[in-house]
């Protein structure tokens, strides 16, 4: 499993593109929002938590179809299915690799981009914490979605239609935690529920993902 994880990480870094693309997309969305809604600081401060979360969600979505597509095409996914590693483990490794290449950089870059949206100073800690708790769930849900659409030729659009409704709870709790933090309210409830969602996703979705992959490889 660790070998698979390292292989995926190495591929992501050496092949280029996917690794930085999500981050660049994140940056562009954040830059476009003030251009669209106007430069009033008060307005930007109030919408910053939601925009940062929506943008990271879209950036995570961008690289999802790569999780299984290449391995499916060149047959290494079939090889993985016959290896001693159970499919559930492979699904988990894939999700972790996706998180390390997109979720983690997004989390680390988000506070820097918070400045661009004049995020309230109290909210930075909550932003970092909520993204750290929430982005693994985004990767895991996305891996499930990618497994569903792997056999399709034009799965990209369908993938976003399937995955985005599943992202709703994560988005609500994540953005709510940052917003409450920015208003100086108690955000622990939202953070705990966010953690619950992430833990639940990692407990259940590897099995669903593995089942889906087996169906697709049949």
């Amino acid at each position, binding site marked *: 499993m660790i070998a698979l994880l390292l292989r995926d990480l190495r591929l992501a870094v050496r092949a280029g593109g996917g690794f930085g693309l999500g981050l660049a997309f994140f940056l562009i969305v954040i830059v476009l929002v003030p251009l669209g809604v106007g430069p009033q600081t008060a307005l930007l401060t109030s919408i910053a938590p939601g925009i940062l979360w929506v943008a990271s969600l879209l950036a995570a979505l961008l690289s999802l179809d790569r999780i299984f597509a290449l391995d499916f095409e060149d047959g290494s996914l079939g090889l993985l299915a016959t290896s001693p590693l159970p499919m559930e483990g492979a699904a988990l490794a894939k999700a972790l690799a996706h998180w390390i290449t997109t979720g983690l950089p997004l989390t680390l870059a988000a506070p820097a981009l918070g400045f661009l949206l004049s995020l309230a100073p109290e909210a930075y800690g909550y932003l970092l914490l909520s993204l750290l708790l929430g982005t693994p769930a985004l990767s895991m849900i996305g891996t499930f979605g990618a497994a569903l659409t792997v056999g399709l030729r034009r799965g990209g659009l*369908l993938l976003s239609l399937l995955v985005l409704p599943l992202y709703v709870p994560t988005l609500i709790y994540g953005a709510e935690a940052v917003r409450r933090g920015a208003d100086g309210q108690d955000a622990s409830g939202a953070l705990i529920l966010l953690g619950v969602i992430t833990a639940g996703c990692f407990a259940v979705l590897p099995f669903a993902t593995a089942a889906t992959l087996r169906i697709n490889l049949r």
Partner: protein
Amino acid sequence: MSFWEYANPKKFMGWTAPVLPYVFGAAALCLTVGLVWGFFFTPDDYRQGSTVKIIYLHVPAALMAINAWIMMLVASLIWVVRRHHVSALAARAAGPIGLVMTLIALFTGAIWGQPMWGTYWAWDPRLTSFLILFLFYLGYMAMWEAIEDPDTAADLTSVLCMVGSVFAILSRYAVNFWNQGLHQGASLSLDAEENVSDVFWIPLVICIAGFVLLFIGLVLLRTRTEIRARRIRALEARARRA
């Protein structure tokens, strides 16, 4: 003879053909009686005026929008466990009907909301979760359309339906956390102290019965269509081979 034999496609076609006219007839009767009674023979509400009468479409449609998804979930589970093709096809047939029910509930709610709340749309938890349910229906139907192999499609949509159900429930509670409600509570529960008055209650129950019958009839009809479509595909494949 076991209960499952009714799921044999040939048996299914056999018993649904005579049953179907009765189901549709009963649905038409219930809906006519319920709607006419509701629209013309109930008094206006003292606060809401005659707008209250949209309840006879709104409540049954909203109820069926949720029940259609539950029916899809049960049918998907039966497909995964027992591999009855009719079950998978029934789940597929229920998708568009549930979608339309969701749309009816959203539209009638918007029409009622404009004079009563002063707005067509508010980001209220119930309204929001219905919009999310609408998206789930869209994704489910798109998934069926996208996959060519019927068995793979049935398997994948079943998994999607099960995972989607969990996330739909999660979303339901998440939006509660996110915003306070504008929508009134349930007006038709058996254990609540305050319910809709009897004058409105009886035609409403008749309308709900009508919607349930209509849903059953439409699902049976669409399932029959799906079975015939699959037979045609099988015949065409055989003709091409020969």
